C-alpha cells in the first residue's frame, strides 16, 4: 500500500508552478538590474531549510477584466515562517514578477495571515514591499485588502517588532503599511515611496517635481524621516534586518537578547576624559563617547541621516541591550528641534514597548530658537520627548556630559521624568538657563551701570556658571544621583543597568495616554 505516484506528481507540479513566480525570464531581467526575487529575498533572510510557506496554492477570485483567465502564482506574494539566528520570524515578500506584485483580495489575506501568525507565535514580522499598488481589476476588494493590512499593522504595533524593507515601488495608500510598522529599511535604487507622485502633483498643482524630490530613499532618510536605514541593495537590506533583529526581543513579553556576562568590568577608561574639549563652547563629537560606552562594534544607529542633532540607536553595554539617545553638539549645537524631538520620542517609545533599557547622554544647550520652530509647533513636538520619557517604565539611566539647560534638560530624561540613575560629569552645567541670559535678568541694573559692560558680563557669567550651573549644586539638592569621573562612565552605567534589569514599575491602568501628536 502506498500513495499513488500521480498524486505526488500533481503536488510537485503545482508547487513548481508557484515556485517559478512570474517565470524565468522576468526573474533573469531582475537579476540583470541587480534585484533579487521575492523568494530569493526570503531565502537570504532565513536559515537554510527552515522556511515553511503559508498559502502556496492561493489564487485570486477576480472574474472581470479578463482576470478569470489568469492564474497568478501565490497571488503575487510569498508568505511564511523561518529561523533567523536560531529565532523564529514571520515574513512575506511581494513578488513583482507576478502582476507587478499588485495587491488584490487574496494577496492581502495572505499578508494578514503572516501578521496573525507573527502575533500568535509572538515573533517579529519582516515585510518585503515591492508592489505596483492596488490591483485595479479587483476594485474595492483591493482597497478593502489594504484596510485589513493597516488594521493588523496597528494590532501588531507594540506586540511584536515589525520591520518593513521597501525594495521596490511602494506608492499611494500602500506606503501607509510600512509607516505603521516600527522600522523602514529602504534600498537605494529601484525603491520609491510616496502618497502622491510626480504625475498627480503635476496634474493637481501644475508644479513639476522629480521622483527624487518626492519619493527617493535619500529624501525619506534625510528630510521626511520616514526611512530609518538606507540599504545599498537587497543583500545589504537583509543584512540590516539580521543586525536589527539581534537587538530585539521576539515580542513585548520577552526581554531583549541580552548576553549577560558573569562579571561587570569596572576598569576605568582614561580615554573618555581625553575626549572632552577644554572649552565648553567647543563641540564634542558624541559618536566618540558612544563608541567607548558600548561593547566593541555594538552600536546600530537608527535614523542616522535624519535630525543629526540627536543620535539614537541600539547597542550593548557589558552584553546588555540598550537604546541610546544622545545630543550631538556637532550639529545645530546639539539643540533639540522639531525633527529631533519626533525622532527621539518615537525611538524611546519603541524601546519602552519592547523592554529595552534606555541610556541618555545629555549635552543640550536648549530648544532651537527660531520662528520656523515656534510656527512648526515645537511646543507640541518637544512635548513628545517629555511624554515619551515620562511614560517609559523600562530602566532609564542618564549621563549628563556637559550642557543641560532648561526645559531641554528635563526633556533628556532628567530624574524628574523618572530616570533611575542620573550621573553627571564634573563638566556638567545644569541650570535653568544659560549664564549670559540669566545675568541679564538678574543683574540688569549693574550691567547698565558698568563702565565696561562686556567685561562685567563675562565676570558675572563666570561667577554664575561656577555657582549656579555646577553639578554639585544639583547633587547637593538631590536632583542627580552622583557626580562621576568620566573615565568611570562605562562601568558605572553598566553596573547600574545590571541592577535595573529587575525593575518593575506599575502605573494606574488606562486605555492609553494622549501623547501630543
Amino acid at each position: 500500500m502506498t500513495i499513488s505516484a500521480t498524486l505526488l506528481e500533481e503536488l510537485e507540479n503545482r508547487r513548481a508552478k508557484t515556485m517559478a513566480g512570474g517565470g524565468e525570464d522576468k526573474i533573469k531581467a531582475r537579476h540583470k538590474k541587480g534585484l533579487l526575487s521575492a523568494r530569493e529575498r526570503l531565502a537570504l533572510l532565513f536559515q537554510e531549510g527552515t522556511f515553511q510557506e503559508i498559502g502556496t496554492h492561493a489564487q485570486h477570485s477576480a472574474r472581470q477584466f479578463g482576470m478569470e483567465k489568469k492564474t497568478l502564482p501565490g497571488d503575487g506574494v510569498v508568505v511564511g515562517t523561518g529561523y533567523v539566528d536560531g529565532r523564529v520570524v514571520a515574513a512575506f515578500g511581494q513578488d513583482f514578477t507576478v502582476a507587478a506584485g499588485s495587491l488584490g483580495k487574496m494577496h492581502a489575506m495572505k499578508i494578514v495571515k503572516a501578521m496573525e501568525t507573527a502575533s500568535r507565535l509572538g515573533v517579529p514580522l519582516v515585510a518585503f514591499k515591492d508592489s505596483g499598488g492596488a490591483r485595479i481589476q479587483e476594485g474595492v476588494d483591493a482597497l478593502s485588502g489594504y484596510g485589513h493590512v493597516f488594521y493588523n499593522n496597528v494590532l501588531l504595533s507594540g506586540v511584536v517588532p515589525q520591520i518593513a524593507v521597501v525594495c521596490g515601488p511602494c506608492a499611494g495608500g500602500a506606503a501607509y503599511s510600512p509607516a505603521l510598522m516600527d522600522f523602514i529599511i529602504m534600498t537605494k535604487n529601484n525603491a520609491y515611496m510616496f502618497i502622491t507622485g510626480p504625475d498627480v502633483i503635476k496634474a493637481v498643482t501644475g508644479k513639476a517635481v522629480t521622483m527624487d524630490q518626492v519619493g527617493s530613499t535619500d529624501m525619506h532618510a534625510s528630510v521626511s524621516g520616514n526611512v530609518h536605514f538606507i540599504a545599498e541593495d537587497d543583500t545589504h537590506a537583509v543584512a540590516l534586518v539580521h543586525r536589527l533583529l539581534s537587538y530585539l526581543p521576539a515580542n513585548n513579553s520577552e526581554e531583549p537578547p541580552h548576553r549577560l556576562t558573569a562579571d561587570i568590568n569596572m576598569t576605568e577608561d582614561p580615554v573618555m576624559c581625553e575626549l572632552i574639549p577644554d572649552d565648553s563652547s567647543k563641540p564634542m563629537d558624541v559618536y566618540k563617547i558612544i563608541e567607548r560606552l558600548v561593547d566593541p562594534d555594538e552600536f546600530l544607529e537608527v535614523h542616522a541621516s535624519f535630525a543629526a542633532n540627536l543620535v539614537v540607536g541600539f547597542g550593548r553595554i557589558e552584553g546588555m541591550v540598550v537604546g541610546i539617545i544622545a545630543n550631538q553638539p556637532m550639529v545645530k549645537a546639539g539643540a533639540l528641534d522639531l525633527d529631533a524631538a519626533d525622532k527621539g520620542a518615537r525611538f524611546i517609545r519603541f524601546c519602552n514597548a519592547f523592554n529595552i533599557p534606555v541610556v541618555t547622554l545629555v549635552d543640550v544647550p536648549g530648544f532651537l530658537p527660531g520662528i520656523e520652530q515656534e510656527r512648526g509647533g515645537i511646543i507640541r513636538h518637544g512635548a513628545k520627548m517629555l511624554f515619551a520619557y515620562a511614560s517609559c517604565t523600562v530602566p532609564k539611566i542618564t549621563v549628563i556630559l556637559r550642557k543641560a539647560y532648561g526645559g531641554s534638560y528635563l526633556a533628556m530624561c532628567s530624574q524628574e521624568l523618572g530616570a533611575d540613575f542620573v550621573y553627571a560629569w564634573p563638566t556638567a552645567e545644569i541650570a535653568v538657563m544659560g549664564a549670559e541670559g540669566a545675568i541679564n535678568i538678574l543683574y540688569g541694573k549693574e550691567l547698565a551701570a558698568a563702565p565696561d559692560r562686556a567685561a562685567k558680563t563675562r565676570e558675572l557669567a563666570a561667577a554664575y556658571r561656577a555657582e549656579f550651573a555646577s553639578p554639585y549644586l544639583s547633587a547637593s539638592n538631590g536632583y542627580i544621583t552622583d557626580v562621576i569621573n568620566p573615565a568611570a562612565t562605562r562601568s558605572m552605567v553598566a553596573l547600574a543597568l545590571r541592577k535595573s534589569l529587575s525593575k518593575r514599575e506599575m502605573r494606574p491602568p488606562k486605555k492609553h495616554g494622549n501623547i501630543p501628536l
Partner: protein
Amino acid sequence: MSRKFKISVDGQSYNVVVDELTGDGVETPPPAATAHAVAAHAAVAAPPPVQSTVLAAAPGDEVAPLAGVVESIEVAVGTKIQVGDRIAVIEAMKMKTDVFAKHGGTVTRIAVKVHEGVETGQVLLSVG
C-alpha cells in the same frame, strides 16, 4: 419672511439672508446661526505667512546651518577649498559650531562679516 442684509466684518462684507420668525416658526433655521457662522469664519482667518529675510541660496553657495553670530571666517576670496573643509565658525546656543564646505572649488565671494548675525540658510560665501 426673508430680508437681505449686507454685513461688514473686519472690512470684509457678507450678504446675509435673515428670516423673521412668525408664530412658533420652529422649522425656520434661527438667524443667529447664520450670523454665528459668519463670525466664526472671520475668526479662523490664518495669520499672514512670515516673509523670509534670507535670500535663496544659489548653486555653489555655502549657507549657515543654524542661526547665530559669525565667530570667524576661515577662508578668503581666492582660497581653494574641498568638500569637508572648515570654512567658518558660527556661535549659537553657547556653542561654536564649525561650518564645513559642501562644495569644492575656489571662494569667489564672502557674503557675511565677523560678528554679524546670520539666519538659518543665509549665504555665508560662494564657491565657484
